[in-house]
């Protein structure tokens, strides 16, 4: 067993393995945006059906954060959705609105933020009050039937 060839091939395997790991980090997975400091923001919804942790938070279709947890706010008895917004997105106005939307055919729920007009900005721990709840199929049908009945 030629020693040179042995050492060379083992070295090549190690390099290939580490290069594969690096390639997986850069090419395959999301990479950089994720871990640049974020700040917490929450929003209260009447109905947050289908929204869960790790769901996207977007504005104008671009991901600007993710949902951390969905729970009940004991004071208002509404659904409280806690989110993390990426640090770079520090220009959301205090009167921004949040809606729960459906993505794609498979029905994955996500939060969409629409910009407001105020000068004051959203900071860590602020609550978005202008919200639009998730569309519930039963309510839609009920609404439709009521409209039909009215005619």
């Amino acid at each position, binding site marked *: 067993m030629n020693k040179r060839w042995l050492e060379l091939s*083992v070295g090549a*395997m*190690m390099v290939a*393995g580490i290069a594969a*790991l690096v390639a*997986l980090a850069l090419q*395959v997975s*999301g990479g950089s945006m*994720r871990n640049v400091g974020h700040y917490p923001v929450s929003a209260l919804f009447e109905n947050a059906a289908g929204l*869960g942790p790790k769901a996207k938070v977007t504005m104008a279709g671009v991901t600007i954060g993710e949902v951390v947890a969905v729970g009940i706010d004991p004071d208002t008895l509404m659904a409280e959705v806690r989110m993390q917004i990426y640090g770079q997105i520090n220009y959301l106005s205090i009167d921004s609105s949040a809606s729960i939307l459906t993505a794609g055919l498979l029905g994955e729920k996500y939060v969409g933020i629409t910009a407001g007009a105020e000068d004051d900005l959203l900071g860590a721990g602020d609550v978005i009050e202008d919200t639009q709840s998730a569309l519930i199929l039963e309510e839609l049908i009920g609404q439709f039937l009521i409209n039909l009945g009215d005619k």
Partner: protein
Amino acid sequence: MLRFVVDCIANLGAVLLHKLVQMGQALLMLLQATTVQPKASSLTRLIQQLYVVGVQSLIIILVSALFIGMVLGLQGFTLLSAYGSEQAVGQMVALTLVRELAPVVAALLFAGRAGSALTAEIGLMKATDQLASLEMVGIDPVHRIVAPRFWAGIISLPLLVAIFSLVGIYGGHLVAVEWLGVYSGSYWGNMQQAVDFNEDVLNGMLKALVFAFLISWIALYQGYSCLPTSQGISAATTRTVVYSSLAILGFDFILTALMFGGAV
């Protein structure tokens, strides 16, 4: 009748006790192998074993990864077309590989190729008194023979799993983009959005590390403790492959539940 039942229970107890003793011995061997003072010559031995265990497994890993990736691309495209979501095939291939298929399939192949080779080699050294010769020259065979092979396994498999993932994803690209016409930007773009380095890639690597530990330990113990006859060696080799495979699949379930169980 009662006699028969009592005998059965007694036999079961004896078998269990025997297994416990074996596990204890295996643990002792592991502790001995991992508490070695490394010397300069240990590095040479480690590199030699990295070649035998790692480099010689590369071919089967590369070929399998390529084919599995290509099949995933093909099947994924077919399935997703039904929902009009062919563009998502990139993330499907990548997530399946990185989270599950790369660690598990690479580990199973590794157990079959490198694991059985390790068991057979050590078993043969035991049967031809080479291990006893080492003892007679005043050298601990666990330090000299078992330890370098153990560390070689721990280092090799995670590297092979990373290579497997990458080659598989490329195989999927070949089929989906080059052949079936998925837009290259979508393939990689969707993938990058869906695959998280910490969540998916690193967890897959963690699985690989756990599997590497299990396979190396099982293979080395079976070789070290086998009956020093040709029948004993072949039985030990078979046990290595069977036990390793079961351990891989069992621990895969446990790890998957721990890592991905709570997420959407």
